[in-house]
């Protein structure tokens, strides 16, 4: 790897600012103006990052309850059929020995959203309380969580496909229920929370000193 020269201080501490859209470097006093290359609004950190991110996260946690308690869809054959919740659907799949897709749906609909909420809480607390441990791991966790969170939409797509496909009048009929709306909004809110979160805030608290392993990491990868 190339030998990068750095003072291990942030661009902001050095009087610079990075355009968040095109990553062109500007002077800090240009904050509030527009980037001369891409026209985006210049800000050294996302405005109101913490409050927006907290708000979306807490709202998603509150909605997660109705999303799991309300039925998401109803499968009726010859007029018979009960509404199903997310967990109910997973259990149904497991009962029918469809272990693989039962697990896939369980991971996408329950495990991923819960892990994402926990991860975002850890990240937000790190910034809120100025914690300074495992910052690199936390940044890595954010990348993973941001990428994986969208897969929670899986069950929503399955509902959409089944509802469109199984419309055979009285023989068989699938309809969506409002638990699906709640769940879709949960996923949406966690995505907004991650977008509003500014990873640079993690590093802003007292990390101006050199990380202990900075010298050995220059030669790897």
């Amino acid at each position, binding site marked *: *790897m*190339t030998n*990068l*020269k*750095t*003072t291990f*201080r*942030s*661009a902001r501490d*050095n009087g*610079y*600012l990075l355009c968040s*859209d095109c*990553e*062109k*470097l*500007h002077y800090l006093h240009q904050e509030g103006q527009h980037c001369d*290359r*891409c*026209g*985006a609004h210049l800000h050294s950190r996302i405005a109101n990052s913490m409050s927006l991110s907290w708000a979306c996260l807490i709202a998603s946690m509150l909605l997660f309850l109705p999303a799991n308690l309300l039925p998401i869809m109803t499968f009726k054959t010859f007029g018979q059929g009960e509404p199903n919740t997310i967990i109910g659907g997973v259990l149904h*799949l497991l009962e029918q020995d469809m272990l693989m*897709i039962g697990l*896939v749906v369980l991971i996408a609909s329950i495990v991923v959203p819960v892990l994402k909420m926990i991860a975002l809480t850890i990240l937000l607390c790190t910034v809120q309380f100025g914690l300074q441990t495992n*910052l*690199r791991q936390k*940044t890595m966790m954010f990348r993973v969580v941001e*990428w994986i969170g*969208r897969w929670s*939409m*899986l*069950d929503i*797509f*399955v509902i*959409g*496909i089944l*509802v*469109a*496909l*199984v*419309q*055979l*009048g009285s*023989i*068989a009929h699938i*309809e*969506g229920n*409002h638990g*699906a*709306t709640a769940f879709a*909004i949960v996923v949406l809110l966690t*995505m907004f929370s991650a977008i509003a979160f500014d*990873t*640079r805030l*993690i*590093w802003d608290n007292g990390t101006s000193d050199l*990380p202990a392993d*900075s010298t050995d990491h*220059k030669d790897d*990868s």
Partner: protein
Amino acid sequence: MQGTLTHLIACHECDLLIERVANQPDQDVICPRCHARLYYTTLNSIERLLALSLAGLILFIPANLFPILSLRVFGQSQSEIILQSALSLYEGGLIVVALLILLFAVVVPLIQLIALFYISFTLHYRWEGRLLRQAMHSYQHLRGWGMLEIFLLGVLISIIKLKDIADLEIGLGLYSLAALIVVITLSSIFFNPHQIWHQIDLHRKQSRSHD
């Protein structure tokens, strides 16, 4: 740290200020503090994006017009195209869910393909490109919101769920959708924002000197 703005670069994930170095084409420059990828070189990026976005726009048509799946029970049959999912949910009263499926599975991928085609076409053929900035902003801000690959996994799960109950037939739409996902994934790999913004910069300077 001394240097002009062009000699310096900041990490977009941890804001570390670093001196820019020249990199080899096969070499990624990694942030020493948080290990984010700072910049890298993609060979023939514009040409590849032009070919991929064009292929994507063409594939978009059969993927949305031909049935993904057809189901047959007791002589009755029903087919599904992507739009049908949104429409059925809308009719069933789940307006928000219908809207999200429409956005994530149809609108966002289409806008991204159009933006990508516009960017690569304008830069490759050195057109004027008044909307280059807007196209770049829309493509970059929509990253992560196109969810065709998740939709495809949803189709596979629906097939497994229904295969014991009814006769299912895979339609041309599903093959087109799979090809479309490959094209979109490749184009997001070859999309190198640093490099393209730099090219837009050069492009603008050139067209200004022509005036």
